């Protein structure tokens, strides 16, 4: 593997004493597309917000986040401000509320252009228009003067993407970018993200609870459960046969496109509260394959093949 663009090591996040992310180790290669999947509350968003210093002050973030070898976790504010938007950009779930309602869209994009590329005035406006064209916003020149409430959710997400691209980042973290959008719009936004990644050679972290979305876009898949990575593998390998019982359960819960209609298999139970994790494997209480050893201690993340790791005592054997 080439030197990673970004490496998380032992990243943990705690709120009010309850640990919600337990020691995430993860490396992103330049230009790679990584999918992070898991149920709501499994810590996939918090991992990235914590890594970029975007959580509120009461969150305790520990571990290491190295961008091209340089530590950025708890770095000086000026350093972080250059990294955020300039080298690692992030877009969010609900584009309508993620854009400032009182500023014109063009101004919000131009703010990023000023900060990261020193562009101002007519040059910034021209570049903002080019970015709007690039992300497929029709009638870009006029949309620069519009406010967020005047555009649809899909158009606002395109604006968010344009704003994220303004700093020419090496990595884009997209946190559930299509969850709040209509299905047809979802597909358009995903296509756009893929096209941009090819064109700009930018790495992508796609956070989603939708396995279909990840299958379509990503080279590699990381599955999180209750604040831990439980499986990671190349996308093709993962979708051919997930090994962790939780990941297998997620796949089994997807409706098949062909074959006879059969009831979907749901995973029984719910995600444990961060403050009340079971002593051993967090998934054990819901796991069809559990035995006594599963409750003894938290299993390690172990390789089952090259580049394919799982955190399970039963399936790794």
């Amino acid at each position: 593997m080439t030197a990673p663009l970004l490496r998380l090591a032992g990243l943990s996040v705690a709120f009010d004493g309850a640990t919600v992310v337990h020691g995430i180790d993860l490396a992103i290669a330049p230009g790679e597309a990584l999918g992070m999947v898991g149920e709501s509350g499994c810590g996939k968003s918090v991992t990235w917000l914590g890594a970029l210093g975007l959580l509120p002050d009461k969150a305790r973030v520990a571990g290491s986040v190295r961008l091209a070898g340089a530590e950025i976790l708890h770095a000086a504010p000026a350093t972080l401000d250059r990294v955020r938007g300039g080298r690692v950009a992030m877009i969010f779930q609900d584009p309508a509320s993620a854009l400032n309602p009182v500023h014109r869209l063009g101004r919000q994009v131009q703010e990023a252009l000023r900060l990261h590329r020193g562009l101002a005035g007519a040059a910034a406006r021209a570049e903002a228009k080019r970015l709007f064209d690039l992300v497929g916003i029709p009638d870009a020149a006029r949309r620069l003067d519009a406010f967020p409430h005047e555009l649809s959710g899909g158009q606002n997400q395109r604006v968010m993407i344009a704003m994220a691209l303004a700093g020419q980042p090496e990595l884009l973290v997209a946190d559930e970018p299509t969850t709040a959008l209509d299905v047809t719009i979802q597909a358009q936004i995903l296509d756009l993200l893929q096209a941009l990644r090819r064109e700009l050679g930018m790495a992508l972290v796609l956070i989603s609870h939708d396995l279909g979305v990840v299958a379509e876009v990503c080279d590699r898949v990381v599955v999180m459960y209750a604040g831990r990575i439980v499986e990671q593998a190349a996308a093709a390998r993962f979708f051919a046969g997930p090994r962790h019982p939780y990941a297998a359960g997620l796949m089994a819960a997807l409706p098949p496109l062909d074959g006879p209609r059969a009831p979907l298999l749901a995973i029984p139970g719910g995600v444990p509260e961060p403050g009340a994790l079971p002593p051993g494997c967090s998934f054990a209480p819901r796991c069809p394959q559990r035995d006594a050893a599963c409750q003894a201690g938290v299993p390690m993340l172990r390789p089952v093949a090259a580049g394919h790791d799982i955190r399970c005592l039963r399936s790794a054997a």
Partner: protein
Amino acid sequence: MLRFLVLRLARALLTIALVVSFAFVVLRLSGDPALLIMSVDAPPEAVAAFRRAWGLDEPLWRQYLSYFGAIASGDLGRSMRDGRDAIVLVGERIPATLALTVPALLIKLGLGIPAGIHAALHRNSWSDRLVMLLAVAGFTVPSFVLGLLLVLVFAVQLGWLPSGGQDSWRHAVLPIITLGVGGAAVLARFTRSAMLEVLGQSYIRTASAKGVPWAQVVRNHALPNAAIPTVTIIGFMVGSLIAGAVVVESVFSWPGVGRLLVVAVANRDLAVVQCILLLVAATMVSANLVVDLLYGALDPRLRRGGSR
């Protein structure tokens, strides 16, 4: 936009008319000016003559109609006590009241808003707790209690400032502080919660995520949004510039509109009370109108018809 303005103006006039009508009826049902202004043992013929002279012997609806007729032609009536035009009597007092309420408003804005912003930005710190403690104290203590307390300390004990009257600027200091403190406390609390609300919004995180330094996030992204709810309260304060000092003027024997109102109500000096209430309603309503227009300027979502 023009249609909006005309509609708002019509509603404003209706509000003023309702306030004045209410005052008109209540004042006439709650006491007889003839008996209050003449002495109680005045001969009945004199009382009857007084009533006739001021039109108080006519049925209420006719008094009401002729009152509104007079207002329409710009006549706000005369004081029953000294026979001068009510508007002149009230007008004389306005500068004295504004001499208290305008500096007090500046204190409210200059103290309340920065304190609220600071508290929100340093949530749960000792300075936040201190600001909130003072704010709760500031708006739970009634102004007459605070006024008397200040008199006790600075006039009686220390002897630094006079306790009442209107002879020099020094006489205005305690009333201005009394008025300013309560409003500053309200504004501090309000600004703090407006800021906290805004700071929790997703677009603040977006701004940080695109590398905007925190000071600029606060200035360019949080403050313009937090200003929207805060403007409502400020509008309210501006609207009460004329009538907001009734209690404080009484405590400090300050000869402003507020004290005139108290005396006029006690005497059932109908024209004067109505004139003051008309003025108060008009300032409050105009302040509200300005607030509505400001909303449009501050929040593009509330702009009507103008944008694409």
